[in-house]
């Protein structure tokens, strides 16, 4: 038993923030940002927009694309670093918004969230505990970003993207690694200071990242995950039709291309959205799916806080 993606969708904030918009409010420039990251613009939640609204839009789009009704969904997984509320979970809120009543799970695996969700979904489908599963990856990194830190705030964006899965014959192949204590501090956001009178914890809760260390981790992890899948399946990169990488930085994508060749197999859309954490892979999938043919072999690969990396080979 395996899985098949039968529908995709996305929900994007209305506000587009260009590099020039950022240059107007901080000491940076379009040239500086685009040369170092490849990012030209990003979407940011604004006004009264909520992540739940984006999630519902993405979910509705994926359900429509799949020709499925909300009642058919047996499991709803939301991947997010942080939803609109600390509790209830985003998946609970989204189930209510969609009018569905099924098991719901939130997964917080940062940028790897979508691939982890695929892994969990595969287990549910394989155990026949679900026939159809909805995964929504929804991130509002603008809420975690330190907008006074020009080295990180230019990198991130907000977005939601969704897929509907159903049981299929073709089993996906996963390669996943968690480094545990080895380097997690290079990419983290601590909880914010609370008002508990019995502890002295203080932190502004913003995202912190060491760019050089994360670049090395990212490129080496991408290489390791893809090689592991190829070796497991006795395939070469020539046998793979498309590699959908987590969109963190165009330089990281180019680093991967340097090692595997075939740049045409590594599409990217980071120019338009920045790093949207777990939403980036399903958003790229949604935007590039028209190029896929039935039976195409796709590798989805992500890396991020943990430090975690995860990849999945699946058949389109």
């Amino acid at each position, binding site marked *: 038993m395996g899985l098949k993606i039968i529908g995709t969708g996305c929900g994007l904030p209305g506000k587009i923030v260009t590099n020039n918009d950022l240059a107007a409010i901080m000491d940076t420039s379009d040239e500086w940002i685009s040369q170092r990251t490849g990012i030209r613009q990003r979407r940011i939640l604004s006004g009264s927009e909520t992540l739940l609204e984006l999630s519902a839009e993405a979910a509705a789009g994926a359900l429509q694309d799949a020709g499925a009704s909300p009642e058919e969904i047996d499991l709803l997984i939301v991947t997010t670093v942080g939803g609109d509320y600390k509790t209830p979970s985003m998946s609970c809120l989204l189930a209510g918004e969609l009018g569905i009543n099924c098991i719901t799970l939130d997964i917080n695996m940062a940028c790897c969230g979508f691939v982890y969700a695929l892994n969990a979904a595969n287990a549910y489908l394989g155990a026949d505990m679900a026939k159809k599963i909805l995964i929504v990856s929804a991130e509002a990194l603008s809420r975690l970003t330190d907008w006074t830190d020009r080295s990180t705030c230019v990198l991130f964006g907000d977005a939601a993207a969704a897929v509907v899965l159903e049981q299929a014959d073709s089993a996906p192949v996963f390669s996943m690694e968690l480094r545990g204590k080895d380097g997690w501090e290079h990419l983290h956001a601590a909880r914010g200071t609370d008002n508990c009178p019995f502890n002295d914890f203080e932190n502004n809760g913003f995202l912190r990242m060491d*760019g*050089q260390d994360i*670049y090395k981790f990212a*490129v*080496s992890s991408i290489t390791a995950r893809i090689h592991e899948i190829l070796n497991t399946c006795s395939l070469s990169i020539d046998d793979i039709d498309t590699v959908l990488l987590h969109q963190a930085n165009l330089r990281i994508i180019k680093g991967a291309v340097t090692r595997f060749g075939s740049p045409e197999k590594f599409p990217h859309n980071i120019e338009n959205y920045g790093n949207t954490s777990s939403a980036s892979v399903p958003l790229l999938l949604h935007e590039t799916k028209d190029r896929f043919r039935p039976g195409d072999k796709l590798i989805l690969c992500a890396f991020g806080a943990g430090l975690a990396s995860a990849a999945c080979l699946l058949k389109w």
Partner: protein
Amino acid sequence: MKEKVLDIIAAYKGVDAADIPTDKPFNDIGLDSLDVAELVMQIEDACGVEIDITPELNCIDKLVEYIESK
């Protein structure tokens, strides 16, 4: 070792190794922090050493000195 490192950097930048100053900060020779991270990875593979990037390793001479001390 210096020649090996210079060759890798020259190939990456697409310039002649002889034209790259080895005592100037990476930033001054047109290498930003992610260029350095990428080059360090390539040098690690080529030289079989693990390089811990620190602010002190800010030019080719210091990088070579670090690698030779490992």
